[in-house]
């Protein structure tokens, strides 16, 4: 088993969730990630709850496998050190606003001059061009900008965020995908490049039917609660034991199997033999399914439906997940040791490869690797490092 990104060094000068996730995904496949943090507070995620013994649990996951180096990029010496670090690196992941980087003198031109084969992933809220380029934004701004928030929630209620800032997650994975494409291209040509990604873009790209449908029909998709626009039945249904069941019986075959379980004295439901007929009769279909699910406990329903090859599932809490036999059998969770918090349960890398292995350790303390990493730079002496520390650059 090999780590395909072994020998790849990534400098990550980025904060919060999305860009650090991109770097941590790459680290799981062997990349060495050196995280550059602001010397006083470090990455803002270090303040995200739960904070146990002064250590943020979310930080430890998102920044697992990384080294932490503190540099004040606002000081010219700090910016120059970042560029020096990039000379011996394969990639730079950065998520500061374009105007901030410009002000600090950290431009792609300067980076390319220092290292022509460097791959720079610049992940910002809105991307590097266009009127909003310099607007700050986080995952929630990106989700709402890309249209996801508007369509989430009940028809008569306010817009909703999903239970997790998905734009950050999707942006992080998308960034890892792009950086790997950059590595493939560099292997073939030796050429580095600037990859410019806006956080809202993967969300917009992902909702593939969203644009085309509006364009054709002029119909502005609104909120529809848990009903799905193209399929029925497909929703969250109550069970006899006051729990919930996810039932997306959205293909014709599954519907045929489900109808046999429903109360359908006149055969009216059985005659609804296309998704469009069922969508048109949604209240009737949902009522029949609800009547059925309310008669059984959640676990009975799952057995009943799985035996018939009908897709269904539980609405897991994180406590359910940690106890789930399938999650355990798949090795989806793993324990890592953290010097401050002891053992931490975290997600294992996902995607199983036959010949690629993965690696997971905890997130670093702020500046834990400053001396180690900067000390390896040419022309760095202990005296200079001490001077930088006194000046607050590191």
């Amino acid at each position: 088993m090999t780590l395909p990104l072994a020998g790849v060094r990534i400098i990550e000068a980025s904060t919060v969730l999305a860009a650090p996730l991109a770097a941590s995904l790459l680290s799981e496949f062997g990349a060495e990630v050196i995280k550059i943090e602001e010397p006083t507070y470090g990455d803002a995620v270090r303040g995200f709850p739960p904070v146990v013994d002064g250590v943020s649990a979310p930080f430890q996951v998102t920044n697992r496998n990384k080294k932490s180096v503190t540099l004040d990029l606002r000081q010219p010496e700090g910016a120059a050190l970042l560029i020096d670090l990039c000379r011996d690196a394969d990639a730079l992941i950065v998520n500061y606003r374009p105007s901030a980087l410009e002000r600090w003198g950290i431009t792609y031109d300067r980076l390319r001059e220092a290292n022509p084969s460097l791959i720079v992933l610049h992940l910002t809220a809105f991307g590097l061009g266009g009127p909003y380029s310099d607007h700050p934004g986080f995952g929630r701004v990106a989700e709402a900008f890309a249209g996801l928030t508007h369509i989430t929630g009940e028809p008569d209620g306010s817009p909703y965020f999903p239970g997790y800032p998905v734009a950050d997650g999707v942006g992080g994975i998308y960034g890892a995908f792009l950086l790997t494409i950059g590595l493939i291209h560099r292997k073939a040509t030796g050429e580095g490049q600037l990859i410019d990604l806006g956080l809202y873009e993967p969300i917009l790209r992902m909702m593939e039917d969203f644009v085309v449908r509006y364009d054709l029909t002029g119909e502005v998709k609104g909120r529809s609660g848990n009903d799905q626009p193209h399929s029925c039945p497909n929703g969250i249904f109550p069970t006899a034991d006051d729990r919930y069941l996810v039932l997306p019986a959205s293909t014709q075959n599954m519907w045929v199997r489900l109808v046999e379980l429903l109360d359908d004295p006149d055969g009216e439901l059985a005659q609804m033999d296309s998704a469009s007929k069922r969508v048109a009769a949604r209240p009737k279909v949902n009522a029949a399914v609800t009547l059925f699910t309310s008669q059984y406990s959640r676990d009975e329903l799952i057995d009943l439906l799985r035996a018939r090859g009908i897709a269904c599932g539980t609405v897991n809490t994180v406590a359910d997940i940690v106890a789930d036999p399938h999650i355990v059998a798949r090795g989806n969770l793993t324990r890592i040791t953290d010097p401050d918090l002891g053992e931490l349960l975290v997600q294992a890398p996902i995607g199983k490869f036959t010949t690629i292995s993965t690696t997971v350790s905890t997130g670093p303390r702020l500046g834990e690797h400053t001396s180690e990493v900067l000390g390896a730079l040419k022309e760095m002496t202990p005296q200079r490092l001490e001077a930088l520390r006194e000046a607050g650059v590191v």
Partner: protein
Amino acid sequence: MQRQHADDDATTGRQGPLSGIRVLDASTMLAAPYTAGLLADFGADVIKVEDCGDGDPMRGLSHREDGQSLLSKVTNRNKRSVALNLRSEAGRDLFRQLASKVDVVSTNFRMSTLEKWGLTYEKLSATHPELVMYHLSAYGRSGPRRDDPGFARVAEAHSGLTYASGEPDGPPLFSGYAIADGVGGVHGAFAVVLALYEAQRTGQGQLVELSLSGAMLRLLEGLVVSYDATGVSPERTGNRNNVAPNGIYQTADGRWIVIPVTSPNMWTRFCAALGLDKLIDDPRFRSNNDRVQRRQELDEIIVPEFESRTFDSLYELLRRAGVAVGPVNSMEDLFDDAASWEQEALIRVSDARLGRGVAMPGIFPQLSATPGGVHAVGPEPGEHTAEVLDELLGISSEETESMVKTGAVAVGQLKSGNL
């Protein structure tokens, strides 16, 4: 203003860092076809293998125009379509031959189906060790649920996202789009290019397997570690999460605004912009952790500031102060925003069958050295059967014609528009 993007390229012109990579996309519905679509965005030659009858069932799920699926125009853009009957030995034999000529095979058939058809990684890679085979499932190839069917919504609920979405006193809520399909699609693309990078390095292909529920769980990394650290399972909190202030607030003119004050600097700028300087050093609200603890107290101070301003004035005020802020866009809002088209967040690709340009998301992002491109909308099922069998396997059009008669392959149009 609205560019005819596809017209910039010749209709056959594949460009991008993955040009030269050939992918056999034997997958259905949303997530796995999206993976292959992303690879095609960046130049891969993607051949979609579809069932001879009505093709990918996804074609029946979305809005249709003139009997054609609009969703397929987007998900399958840049791809060619070959219709094979994998339930016949002749069809499976053609599949194996095609697999021997490609770099990547992508599929989401159930494990038991792949075994029954003799299309497992072991079989396909026996004579083709460089092959990267990608397999997507709901729950993974192992574990007690390996053959359970499941779609995105099941995976989302399984991973904990659904439970955590909605109001504390209400039922769990799906997000407005089947997030797991998107997440699985992007994660799959990452996994495939990682394996391609390894193959480029060592000449060795491999099997890459991903589950929708695994991809979702990996994404929700903060939930697991928080539960582990505190023993408290995160409950539904509506629009309030572990950052404060952070939410969707209504403005004086009834519009919605998103304001996530995620960093210490942002908090300072936020207070200054709203004339609430006294809050900056208020010990009750010093750290994000403090603000989360006293969210209600804080909301009582800040919400009136939002309710007394129009969206436009609040947006400009906060934006000028460097505070992250944004609108809750509908599709109409996005289409009306000139920047969407100028930045090519939205593009139009011409479609000869529909006789017009089809609007869709552009290529994200623009790579400076190797931009991708969109050269065609998604094909009809079997539109390229004859072309691909000839190009890859040297099968003549007469032979293809005779296989159409035996039902091993199909060419051209959909048989029926009714699914």
